[in-house]
């Protein structure tokens, strides 16, 4: 891994330069809500943020993806969509969200390759930004992550004062840096030390902690435990936890038509919604919130590790921050572990 530095006052120039060849998605502040949006100008970017409200999975796995369009009637035909080829950069992605992409790769490029996700993933470069100040419910360090990890990004920037410490972690990353070579210089020993200091400070600022040893087996044993009923009593059944989750990836597919034409779209779905498992017969195998909240926990901490050997949680804390009734995933896992 090469280590470079980029003076802060050259960041704008760097972005302006790469903007010529790439669509840039970056954190934008809309009335105090941080969301990733495609930007036209550097000035739109808000770098003073903890994390975005909606995770950047929404760029690769869009909330509404048009799969193809069609015409109806005598001249019926299918029109394919070819919008996956634009070259993208996600700028300012946090290490936890970048990790979620590596987790999502498992499911989108498993037995069935999902062309929509995979194509965009290939065409996207991740420029990460280390967390200097973790949010109150961050627990990435419990999930094999770190607020300053370069593992899942192509380039990682870490704020070390008047410059960014730059770690290049892939060929994609080094190729991009080559195109704007003049902006970067080699990191000194003191720069490297500063990055380590930032890393330590940031890790120390994380106070929440989830223990997951043996959780897969434990969950196998307590499927019918009353814990799930108890937890579900206060659940409203809204979709905040799943839509804000960087690893949740379920979708629904619908044809949306007028009399003459239409499109097949896929839209984020949520297992918190009763309709998610509703059969055409009217039968619902997950009839109550108890079944649905259990599914959310099991998918992340039991089924996913069994299938892909990784827990489908990166510790971003979004579901804890925004649950309207304070259902706290750390607390739920703690309670599950304590069941005798």
């Amino acid at each position, binding site marked *: 891994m090469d280590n470079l530095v980029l003076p802060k006052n050259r960041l704008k120039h760097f972005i302006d330069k790469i903007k010529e060849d790439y669509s840039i998605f970056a954190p934008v502040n809309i009335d105090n809500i941080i969301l990733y949006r495609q930007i036209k100008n550097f000035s739109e970017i808000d770098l003073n943020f903890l994390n975005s409200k909606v995770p950047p999975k929404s760029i690769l796995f869009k909330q509404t993806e048009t799969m193809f369009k069609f015409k109806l009637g005598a001249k019926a035909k299918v029109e394919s969509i070819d919008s996956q080829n634009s070259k993208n950069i996600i700028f300012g992605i946090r290490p936890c969200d970048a990790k979620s992409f590596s987790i999502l790769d498992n499911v989108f490029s498993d037995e069935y390759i999902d062309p929509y996700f995979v194509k965009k993933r290939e065409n996207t470069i991740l420029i990460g930004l280390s967390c200097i100040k973790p*949010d109150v*419910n961050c627990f990435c360090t419990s999930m094999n992550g770190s607020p300053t990890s370069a593992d899942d990004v192509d380039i990682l920037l870490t704020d070390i004062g008047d410059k960014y410490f730059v770690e290049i972690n892939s060929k994609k990353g080094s190729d991009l840096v080559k195109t704007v070579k003049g902006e970067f210089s080699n990191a000194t020993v003191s720069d490297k030390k500063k990055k380590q200091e930032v890393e330590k400070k940031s890790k120390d600022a994380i106070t929440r902690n989830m223990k997951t040893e043996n959780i897969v087996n434990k969950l196998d044993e307590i499927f019918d435990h009353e814990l799930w009923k108890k937890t579900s009593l206060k659940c409203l*059944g*809204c979709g905040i936890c799943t839509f804000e989750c960087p690893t949740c990836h379920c979708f*629904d597919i619908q044809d949306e038509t007028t009399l003459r034409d239409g499109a097949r779209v896929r839209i984020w779905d949520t297992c918190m919604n009763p309709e998610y498992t509703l059969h055409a017969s009217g039968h619902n195998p997950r009839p109550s*919130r108890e079944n649905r909240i259990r599914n959310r926990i099991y998918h992340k901490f039991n089924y996913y590790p069994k299938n892909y050997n990784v827990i489908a949680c990166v510790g971003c804390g979004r579901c804890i921050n925004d649950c*309207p009734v304070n*259902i706290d995933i750390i607390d739920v896992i703690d309670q599950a572990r304590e069941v005798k």
Partner: protein
Amino acid sequence: MVDQKKLREEAKKIIEREDVKYLIGWEKGTYGFQMTPLFLTSSDDVNRLVFNPLCIHNLVVFPMLEEKLPLGKDKPEDNKKIGIIVKGCDSRAIVQIMQEKGLKKDNLVIIGIPCNGVIDPKKISKRFPQKTKTFDVEEDDNNFIIKTDEKTYKIPKDELVLDKCKTCEFPNPVIYDVLIGKEIKTSAKSDYKEITSFEKKRLEEKWKYWERQFEKCIRCYACRDVCPLCYCKECMVDQLKPQWVRRSVNISENTAWNIMRALHLAGRCVDCGECERVCPVGIPLTKLNKKLEKDVLELFNYKPGINAENKPLLSIFKPDDAEDFIL
């Protein structure tokens, strides 16, 4: 400040009743200033019960969310009552739902608490950012008293109270079986200042404002799910045949959803503000609700959720009803 001891005593009495299955109140949450709904099923749970100015949740949603699954063989029908603790605004939701015959008083045991206003979670987390540890919060006449391990802060209520509480006309529960504490005298009145000034803006300006808001909507439907008055068996937005609102998340469908949600609450919304509190992307939903509340008041001189004997606004007709807004 509510007498916690008295509250727990009354709660205990209710839970111990044969005909009550559980009592819904609040307990401390898992971090910071979070409180969380508590379902008390035995008198052992009483010591967890708390009421303080952080108890913002309108718990009336829970009786409406109760799932009635098919009964197993030989299982007796569940006729037990639900106990519930309500503030003034919350209690109006019960009355409004009773007006609509969605709840029966016989099925509830209600503890009412006169409320001096709750703390705005956004304001307090801005004042005390990044707090993992939980706090004790109390109040006196003019201040919220916030206790941490190291320090006690006394903060004037005006700085932290939820905006809508400042003009609350109903601090006292309008329906209850037991009242904890003394009734509060108030002369506050909704002034609709914000709405009146917004109404004066040009149409294009208003449209642009709402486009910017609805563009953020992720259609998680938390606004609907947290609302006690949104209790349709199947929400219109979930229907497929016909499909009133498409599943695509875009400005057009998001606008349809948000306007539909607001209109379905016209003459019904009791302004508890829960929809706006839970919205993850910060859409100012109470602004829509307040506009409809104002129109309903001006046109029909009607306020929802005050008297359970009243008929719901939209199911009555009077020959002299205003009609000049009909095109």
